[in-house]
């Protein structure tokens, strides 16, 4: 039987619970409580997306213990969490690099030179679009329109926007990341 139920949910006889459920600090728990308070008490499932971003911030991706935590906290089955996790492009069901480079590939960026930016990133990092570097630090993705069309071409690094790009700017940015000098501006808070 697959692991569908968690201690806080009704347990049919014989159902297994996951071996490990993620734990968070009191500060993070308070943050999560803050999100849950936005929705009617019987609708706490509504908080799933905000909570998934917090789990990702704390654990890097939606790993099994993280998913079990969400199911437990929201009072839903583990399948319900996976159902949502696999629908949205910003939710990671496998590890991604600390530096996730997401290049907009849609029309305005495309005609303004997104292809050149992707090539430059690929050349600089030695990985192709969709891949993660061998050391696990860099992931390169091509994504759909990020609402930065007037400042194309652009990429998003973590949650930070980098706009009006040129191959030179890309090199400078990636160099900083490789030296671990890049400071992320926008955070899940």
């Amino acid at each position, binding site marked *: 039987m697959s692991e569908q139920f968690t201690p806080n949910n009704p347990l049919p006889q014989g159902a297994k619970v996951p071996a490990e459920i993620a734990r968070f600090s009191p500060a993070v728990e308070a943050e999560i409580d803050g999100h849950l308070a936005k929705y009617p008490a019987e609708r706490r499932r*509504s908080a799933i997306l*905000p909570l998934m971003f917090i789990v990702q911030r704390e654990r890097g991706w939606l790993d099994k213990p993280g998913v079990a935590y969400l199911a437990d906290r*929201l009072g839903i089955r583990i399948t319900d969490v996976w*159902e949502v996790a696999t629908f*949205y492009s910003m939710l990671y069901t496998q590890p991604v690099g600390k530096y996730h480079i997401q290049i907009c590939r*849609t029309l*305005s960026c495309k005609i303004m030179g997104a292809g050149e930016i992707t090539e430059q990133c690929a050349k600089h990092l030695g990985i192709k679009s969709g891949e993660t570097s061998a050391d696990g630090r860099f992931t390169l993705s091509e994504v759909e329109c990020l*609402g930065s*069309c007037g400042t194309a071409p652009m990429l998003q690094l973590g949650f930070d*926007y980098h706009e009006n790009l040129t191959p030179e700017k890309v090199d400078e940015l990636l160099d900083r990341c490789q030296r671990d000098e890049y400071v992320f501006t926008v955070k899940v808070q």
Partner: protein
Amino acid sequence: MSMFIGAIGCEPLQLRRVSLERSETLDVYRRNGGYEALKKVLDGMSPGAVIDEVKKSALRGRGGAGFPTGMKWSFVPKDSPKPKYVVCNADESEPGTFKDRYLMERDPHMLIEGMLIAAYALGSKATYIYTRGEYRYLINIMDAAIAEARAAGLVGEKIMGTDFACEVYTHTGAGAYICGEETALLSSLEGLRGHPRMKPPFPAVSGLYASPTVVNNVETLTAVPDIINMGGAAYQQLGTEKSGGTKLWSVSGHVKRPGVYELPMGYDDMEKFIMEDCQGIANGRQLKAVIPGGSSVYIMPAADIIGKDVRMDYEGIVTGGSMVGSGGFMVMDDTVDVFETTKNLTEFYKHESCGWCTPCREGTDWLVKVFKRIANGEGRPEDAQLLLDICDNIEGKSFCPLGDAASWPIQSAIKKFPDDFRKHLTPLVRQVEMTTA
């Protein structure tokens, strides 16, 4: 390249504060007319009177569908015992559209005020701003603005010392274009996959948590304070009879000056807008095509714009052969291959199809396969007709408008730029033979 942000052909209205220093703060907002509309409403306007002003304004939904906002509001049943919700659609994901981003970044209190007025008019005590996950920095800006407003007694209990109470909450999306469709947005807000729902019942009757709900775009809600301040009739007068007020256009692509332009509805005309206001086509090239309303509308060739006096409003652009949509105005010069741009957009729709209904899920996948085969040099003369046939099997047959949105760019591109397709539709071997003959 510097981006323009401002008004042309009218006094800036929705954009009048965006260039002020610290425009995101409550202090600057209040010193520039902020929260006066809310005060006017709470000082003695009935909810019905607020809805009447919005009706008189001829404001139409700025998210893309262009549905009259006042009418949408009037569909909410007044006698329902259920809680009512106002939801702001800040899932701005239509390719080519970035206006809401600047409104929220630079004037977040205008959105809060618009939501509070809508909540007052509709009897709502809880409102949500559903922002696309990629716009995380805007969620942080909105959270800060809401906290500031709460501290000043503008959000929460006893707003402005009256009995009006209302909460404004931010909510994050997580990367899904479909969540810009209002019923999919509500599914997502309930913690489900972003699948659209059957209409009717419309959200006004059964929306969030099966309660009466109004979903409005950022640009729509931020127009509301001005409508209250100046009166619906005066707002309508800024535009045309059927398209009231001003509209924001997100201009991108091969113009010298891209940006967010606020134009009066009915602005005359599109050629002047491109060639003068946006300073013409960059790099000395010629205009080839424009997609005026986000990727989901018909592409317009230069010949349908130059010398054609296309008025920039809902009716004018329909006459010109396309739609206002979200106002995502993408300009392409003569280096662009319309086959390639159409392929790019079709890949977008395939990626964003939510998978709920067969015509859209299978159809967009099939379209991309055909496009890729053609791009690989294996195009056949009958492929243009094949693409049109697939579109015909998606358009009007899908569960939500995403299917139509995927079909229209292809249909119009083949019709308006047949040569760009034709040159790809001969097997590569024959193309080589033809060029070397």
